[in-house]
C-alpha cells in the first residue's frame, strides 16, 4: 500500500536561513496526524511546501506515491489534496452558498465552462447544500462571507477545504482565535466532516490535538523531533523539554 503523504529529506531556506531542515515523514492513508511545535518551528512552512504554496529548496514530497513538489497548488489540489489557512481565506464578496459551490466545481468536472448555467448543475448545487448543512451554515445561505462572524468564517473555511472531496486534508490552526466553547464544538465538527480522510492538523491547542489525532508529529526548529502516538509523545522526554514542558501546555491538556 502506498502512503498518503511521504516527505523525503525536505528542506526550505529563505535567504540564508534554513527554516525546514531535513524532514522525513510518512503518513499512511486514513491516519490523523496532529502537527505541533513552538511558534516559528516551521509548521506552516511545512504545510505550504506540501500544498504547493512554496517550493522546497531540496527534497521530495509525494502524494499517494506521486511526486508533487514541483507542481502548482491547483495541480496538487486536483490530485486530491486540499488545505485550509491559518488566516481565514474565503471569498468575501460571495455568499456562503457561492463560496461552497466554487469549491466543488472543479472536482465535479465543470472546469472553465461558460456554456452551462450554474443553476442547472444539480450535482454541484446539491453538494454545496450538503456542505452548508454539514458546517451548520444552512441559515446563512445568502449571507456574504465577509458579514459572517469569525467562528462562522472558520467553519466556511473548513467547508471550502473539504468541498472538492479530497482524500488528504491539511488544516492550518483551524481553531485559531476561537473561544473555549467554540473550540470544543468546532473540534467535533472537524472530526465529523473528515471521517475516512487522511488528516494533518497544525494546532496550538493541546486539547484539540489530543482529541483529533491518532499520531502526533512534533516539529521543532524545522526538524521532526518525534512522530508517535499521543501517549508516547507525551512521555517523550525530549519533547517535554522542547515544548510540552511549559505550564501553559500542561494546563491545556489537563483543562476542561
Amino acid at each position, binding site marked *: 500500500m502506498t502512503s498518503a503523504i511521504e516527505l523525503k529529506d525536505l528542506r526550505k531556506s529563505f535567504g540564508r536561513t534554513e527554516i525546514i531542515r531535513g524532514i522525513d515523514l510518512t503518513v499512511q492513508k486514513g491516519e490523523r496526524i496532529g502537527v505541533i511545535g513552538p511558534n516559528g518551528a516551521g509548521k506552516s512552512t511545512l504545510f505550504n511546501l506540501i500544498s504547493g504554496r512554496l517550493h522546497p529548496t531540496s527534497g521530495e514530497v509525494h502524494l499517494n506515491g506521486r511526486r508533487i513538489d514541483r507542481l502548482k497548488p*491547483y495541480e496538487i489540489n486536483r490530485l486530491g489534496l*486540499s*488545505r485550509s489557512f491559518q488566516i481565514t481565506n474565503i471569498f468575501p*464578496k460571495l455568499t456562503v452558498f457561492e463560496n461552497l459551490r466554487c*469549491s466543488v*466545481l472543479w*472536482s465535479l468536472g465543470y472546469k472553465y465552462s*461558460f456554456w*452551462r448555467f450554474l443553476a442547472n448543475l444539480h450535482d454541484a448545487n446539491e453538494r454545496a447544500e450538503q456542505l452548508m448543512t454539514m458546517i451548520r451554515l444552512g441559515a446563512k445561505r445568502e449571507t456574504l462571507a465577509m458579514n459572517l462572524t469569525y467562528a462562522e468564517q472558520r467553519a466556511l473555511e473548513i467547508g471550502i477545504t473539504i468541498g472538492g472531496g479530497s482524500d488528504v486534508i491539511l488544516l492550518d490552526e483551524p481553531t485559531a482565535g476561537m473561544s473555549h466553547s467554540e473550540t470544543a464544538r468546532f473540534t467535533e465538527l472537524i472530526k465529523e466532516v473528515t471521517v475516512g480522510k487522511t488528516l494533518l492538523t497544525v494546532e496550538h491547542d493541546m486539547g484539540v490535538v489530543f482529541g483529533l489525532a491518532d499520531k502526533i508529529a512534533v516539529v521543532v526548529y524545522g526538524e521532526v523531533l518525534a512522530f508517535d502516538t499521543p501517549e508516547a509523545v507525551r512521555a517523550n522526554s525530549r519533547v517535554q523539554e522542547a515544548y510540552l514542558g511549559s505550564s501553559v501546555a500542561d494546563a491545556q491538556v489537563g483543562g476542561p
Partner: protein
Amino acid sequence: MATSINRSRWIVWTAFALVMALAPQVFDSGLGMTVLSQMGIGIIACLSYNMLFGQGGMLSFGHAVYTGLGSFMAIHALNAATGGGLPLPVALVPLAGGLAGLGFAVLFGYVTTRKSGTTFAMITLGLGELVFAMSLMVPEFFGGEGGVSGNRMVRDGWWGITFGPQVQVYYLIAIYTFVCVALMYAFTGTPLGRMLNAVRDNPERVEFVGYDTQRVRYLAFIIAGFFAGISGGLAALNFEIVTAEVVGAARSGGYLLFTFLGGATFFFGPILGAILMVLALVLFSEFTQAWLLYLGLIFLLMVMFAPGGIASLIMMNMRVAMFGRLRELALSYLGLAATGVLMLAGGTSLVEMVFHLQLKQSEGSVFSYLGVGLDVENMVHWLLAALVLAIGAGLFEWVRRGFVHRWGLIQTAIEADIRRRAAT
C-alpha cells in the same frame, strides 16, 4: 419564489427590448438617432469592460485597444465586402470586429493576464500606448491621420434595408446590443463567470480549489475582447470612418471612468454608465466648454462618497423603499436637490466666468449663462456668484447632515428588521 424571479426577469428583459425598440419613436430627430446609436455601442463596450473590472477585479487601462482594433478590422472587412472581395453581408460586419477583438485578446491577453493587480494595470497601459503608437506608424492599416473610411450602403438590400438611413443602423445596433447584453448577463451565471468573481475576491484561494487563476483571467479577457470588438465593429458601421483615436488612452480612460460612475458592482451599472458617457460626450460637451472639469469633479465626488456608483445608490434606495421607509427621506432629497442646484448655480457661474475670461474675451466681457447676463469685468458679478456658491454650500451641508442622520436611523431599523425576520 423561483417562478416570481423568472417572471420579474421576463419583465425586465421585455422592458429592455421595448425601450430600445420604441426609443426612436420618441427621439426621432437626427441628434436623437445619433445619441441612441452611440448608447447601444457604449453599452456593449462598458459591459465588456466590466467583465474585467467589476467581475474579475482587473483594472484595465487599455480596453480601447480591443474596441478600436475591432473597429479597424470591421471597416476593412466592410470595404472588402463592398469592394466585392469578401462575401460578407453588411449586417455581419460587427462580427468581424468581434473576431478581431477576440484574436487580439488571445494575443495580448496572454501577456497581460499572467499578472494581476497593479502589474496587470501597468501592462495594459503599456500595451495601449504601444498600439496607439503603432496606429500612427502603420498608415497602411490604420490610415494615418485621416483614418480609414468606408461606405455601409447596400445597393439593393433585402426588404429595402440598405443601411443608408440612420434609423436602420440604429435597429441593427439595437439587436446586437440586446443579444450581447443577454449573452454577457448569461456569462455571469456560468461556472467560469462565478470563478471569475472568486478570482477577483481571493486569487490565492482559487488555486487551492483546483483552478488556475491565470487561465480564468485569460479566458474572461478573451470573452471580454470579443464583445469589445463587436462594439467597435458597430461603431465602424455607425460612423463609416475609423481614426487612430479609437485605440487611444482617452477612450480607454472613458470606459473605466463611466463604468465606475455607472457602478461596477451590479450588472446593470455599466449600462447606466454608457448612457451617461454618450450624454456627456455628445450633449454635455456642446453645452459647456468646461465639461471635462465638471466630469472630473463628479468622478472625484463619486469615488469619495459613492464608490459603488449610481447603480449602488439606486439599489440602496430600493432597499429602503422595500422596507417602506423611502417616503421619510423625500423631504431630505428635495432639500438636497434644491440646495445642490443653488450651490451648482454659483459654482458653475464662477467656472464659466473663468473660462470666458481665459478663452473668449474677444467676444466681449458679457455672456449669457442660465439666462443671466454675466459680466466678467464686473466685480459685483464675481462676488454675487461666490455668494450664491457659499450660501448654497452652507445650506447643502446643513441639509446633508440631517439626511445622513435620518439615513443612519433607517438603516439601523432595517438591519434590526432583517435580524428579527431571520430569527423567526
